[in-house]
């Protein structure tokens, strides 16, 4: 698989994180793994850069974190969606739908 990269739209990573946390609370490593698995390695989140995104999302009140114990008995910080985050996820999903429909229409028209 080629490693050619395309920058995705701003806010896409936040949308993926919100969507991943919609099912259950997870630590950062789990979030990256889940996105990679779901995308079957088509999407690549740079592991380190996930954390500033998580911290900003927490700062905005979309997610909140608490320390817990991981599957291998290590202390880890788990993130979960807040009610604001749930609303944000729904809004971002709707926004994503609108944008993708609009782009598809433009591509089909030309």
């Amino acid at each position, binding site marked *: 698989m080629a490693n050619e990269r395309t920058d995705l739209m701003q806010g896409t990573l936040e949308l993926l994180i919100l969507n991943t946390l919609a099912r259950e609370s997870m630590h950062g*490593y789990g979030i990256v793994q889940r996105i990679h698995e779901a*995308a079957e390695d088509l999407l690549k989140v*740079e592991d380190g850069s996930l954390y500033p*995104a998580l911290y900003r999302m927490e700062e905005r009140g979309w997610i909140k974190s608490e320390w817990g114990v991981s599957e291998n008995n290590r202390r880890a910080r788990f993130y979960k969606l807040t009610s604001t985050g749930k609303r944000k996820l729904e809004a971002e999903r709707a926004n994503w*739908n609108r944008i*993708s429909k609009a782009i598809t229409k433009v591509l089909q028209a030309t």
Partner: protein
Amino acid sequence: MRTGLRNLLMSLNCRKTAVDVEEELQFHIEMLERNYAQQGMSGAHAKAAALRRFGNFEKVKKQCVEISRRNSQLRRILKTSLIFIALFGLSVRTLSSDYRVARIGAMLIMIAIASRLLLYVRGLSSRNFLPGTKQTSLSLFTDTPDDALRQKSEIILGHSQYRER
């Protein structure tokens, strides 16, 4: 004395934030290392691969600590201001004999309480106070057929935006 104590507390709090961030990032690297080791890499190779995949540890740590501190400092300033506003309103309300001034005091108390509740419910968004922050990296492998890409997009978002029409 009081300023010194406050500085000490702030310094301890900042140090704790940095330690927490480092522990969190270290956990991620160790998990990556473990994963690579399970795939058959030697210890040194697994560690090198994990560090490579994670990216610049110090830079990420610095960014996270910065965001945490900014958030907690703003929060502290706002909370303190709200307490002062409420106390000022209370003193005006109780000490003033003029009905109108007392009413202003009551309004200040209500504003402070409402703002505090809003802070509690909504959290504090730095975007309301500070310039926009940098986006993080997310890349898309581009040599994939469109159909496969659509399928993956649906899987990730758990949504049917492509099926609707």
